[in-house]
């Protein structure tokens, strides 16, 4: 089982790299822009199988930052696969796949040679599983908000500077990108709030006292990450709803906020 997990850990970034090249060809060569491909579903299936094997082997769902990154990558790939089927257009896939590949690659690097110690007691409990799922959804939604926010800013810049280059008419309209960014942020914020709200229950259900959990630097870092993400995106919510922030500012917050979140997740993974 351990051998299979090692192979799976390195296979996943390679598979996503292949998908990235495929989607890159679609974007740049305008080939098969409306074609339906089973490869993304296949890779997502392999990814799900690897995560499931990992869960069976270690006895808990993705809980550590390294595993969460991989879970977010899978969630993004699966959500995008559904979006691709609904929209019958695979031209924006290259941007999502780039992020998915980077997340999975980071996860695989961090997991390689990492001595897996079951020190996340909370993860092993039922409350822990409840806690992980909304966190995964929240980080996935923030990832999408980041991608669509980036696309919004790039498209807006091109349109304002009258550049009819590579991105022009390959992307969805500007206001649609702005709306997708906002919707993704709202979904992420709701689930992040849920994650934080269930946090005390996780601590209470653990074998050790909440105080001990808080003194664990990894757990502490995750709490800080969730808190920082919540504050950043709450600011965006208030800005949009109360102060009528324009879509470009929301997009900028989505991009910057996700960069901070990923940096904190990586930092928490690097902690002993």
């Amino acid at each position, binding site marked *: 089982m351990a051998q299979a997990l090692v192979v799976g850990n390195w296979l996943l970034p390679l598979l996503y790299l292949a998908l990235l090249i495929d989607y890159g060809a679609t974007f740049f060569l*305008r080939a098969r822009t*409306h074609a339906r491909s089973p490869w993304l579903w296949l890779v997502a299936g392999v990814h799900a199988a690897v995560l499931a094997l990992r869960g069976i082997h270690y006895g808990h769902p993705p809980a550590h930052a390294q595993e969460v990154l991989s879970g977010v990558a899978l969630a993004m790939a699966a959500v995008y696969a559904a979006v691709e089927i609904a929209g019958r257009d695979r031209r924006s896939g290259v941007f999502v796949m780039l992020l998915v590949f980077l997340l999975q690659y980071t996860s695989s690097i961090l997991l390689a040679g990492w001595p897996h110690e079951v020190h996340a007691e909370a993860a092993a409990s039922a409350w822990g599983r409840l806690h992980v799922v909304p966190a995964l959804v929240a980080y996935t939604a923030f990832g999408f908000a980041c991608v669509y926010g980036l696309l919004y800013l790039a*498209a807006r810049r091109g*349109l*304002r500077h*009258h550049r*009819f280059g590579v991105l*022009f*008419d390959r*992307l*969805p*309209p*500007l*206001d*649609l990108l702005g*709306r997708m960014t906002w919707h993704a942020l709202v979904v992420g914020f709701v689930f992040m709030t849920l994650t934080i709200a269930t946090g005390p229950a996780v601590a209470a259900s653990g074998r050790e006292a909440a105080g001990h959990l808080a003194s664990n630097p990894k757990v502490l870092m995750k709490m800080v990450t969730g808190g920082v993400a919540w504050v950043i995106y709450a600011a965006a919510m208030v800005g949009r709803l109360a102060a*009528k922030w*324009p879509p*470009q500012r929301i997009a900028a917050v989505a991009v910057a906020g996700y960069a901070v979140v990923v940096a904190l997740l990586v930092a928490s993974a690097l902690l002993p």
Partner: protein
Amino acid sequence: MAELVVIGLNHRTAPVEVRERVALPPDLLAGAIQAVRADPALEEALILSTCNRTELYAVLRAGCDPLEYFLALVGRVKGAAVGADRACFYRHDGPAAARHLFRVAASLDSQIVGEHQILGQVKDAYRLAVAARTTGFLLNKLMHWAFRVGKRVQTETDLSRGPAGIAPAAAELAGQIFESLAGKTVLLVGAGRTAEAAARALLARGAVRLIVANRTLYRAQQLAYDLVHGPAPEDEGENEEPPGIARGAPAAGGAAVAGGAAVGGPAAADLRGPARSDRASPAGTGAEGATAAAEAIALEDVPRALPRADLVISSTGSPEPVLTYDGLADGLRRRERPVFIVDIAVPRDVDERLGGLENVFLYNIDDLDRLVARNLERRRQEIPRAEAIVEDELARFAEWLASLQVAPTIRLLNEFLQSLRQAHLERYGRQFADADLERLRRFTETLCSRILARPTEFLRSLTQEGGTGETLRTVQLVRRLFGLDEPR
């Protein structure tokens, strides 16, 4: 495929004065196709007539000269002899005729390569021919094959992507900013022809409110009425329209609006009506069946109207900017929604400093020219891919047609029976002594020859007596009956 032929002329082979003499407007086209039906010279026929081409696709009976036949037909329908130079016409036979049709359907033969309308026009011509029952087995198959080619080229290449005219380019730019123009307000400043075309393109995409500003209020009212109730957009010649479409302003409506203007002030004319009854909105805009409302204002009222507008098209003949920074910047800064401004005028109407404001997307005529040039270049680059699709489909069509020829079918039928005979001899031959086996071989050989004699004679007689369509249909039936196309 020897009897399939296309005869016709187009924008490359004939000047407009010749094309218009041969062209068949929709009302005459129906009469022409009915005349073809009554005439036994053609086994199957279809006439395609647009402002850039008039073509007859036909399956000929022996002895028919298609060019003379066609000129006589057009003369008969128009009631006067067609004095057209024969050198303006082209003729393609067999596979070349199929290739020509595929290229036409793929918009590779159009004046502006990649224009959208031609495939619909080919379908209309086919519908008319089907209604008149002038198509048969071969043309039915050929036309559906051509539709597939057109569809493949549209979906698999960028040949039709990006508008090739200034007005549609403005609409395309708007489409990059707004997901849908449904519910959007267009402010048209000035009454230039291109600006009018751009406004029409935006209305066609779903914009439902129109404000027309002009130095002369009466002209603004007239244009507002025309844009909402007027004729279909011309698309700056990108599309091949049916010949003989009349254009003009509705006089009665114009007078009604003029009455509104007489009372003075910004006359908000309620012009609700079927603005695009003949112009379907693009799918997905959510504006299907929507109606437009128009309002006419004086040029001085533009600053007051601007906050309501989402899209502005300016095309006045003013030597000074009409939309000035000092007059409009404050209002535009306070604005929460983006505003898309297209300045088509030379000298420019819009102060370029307005383009620096947060929510303003300002384009001038040079920007639109660059966009059109880019689109045309991209279409040019797509031609080889589209041609490859045409050749690919032509090869398949030729293969299908060759499979329905009599001689290869007889050969296949013979091979089928021989293989059946051989298989059974191998299976049961061991039960016979050598001498008996030899007699059995001769017996089965004779039996096969006898069985084949009658069908062979019948199939050969088809080539002499039957029409092309009947022959192809019968051959196809025989092949299906004996499973000759199935792998063995």
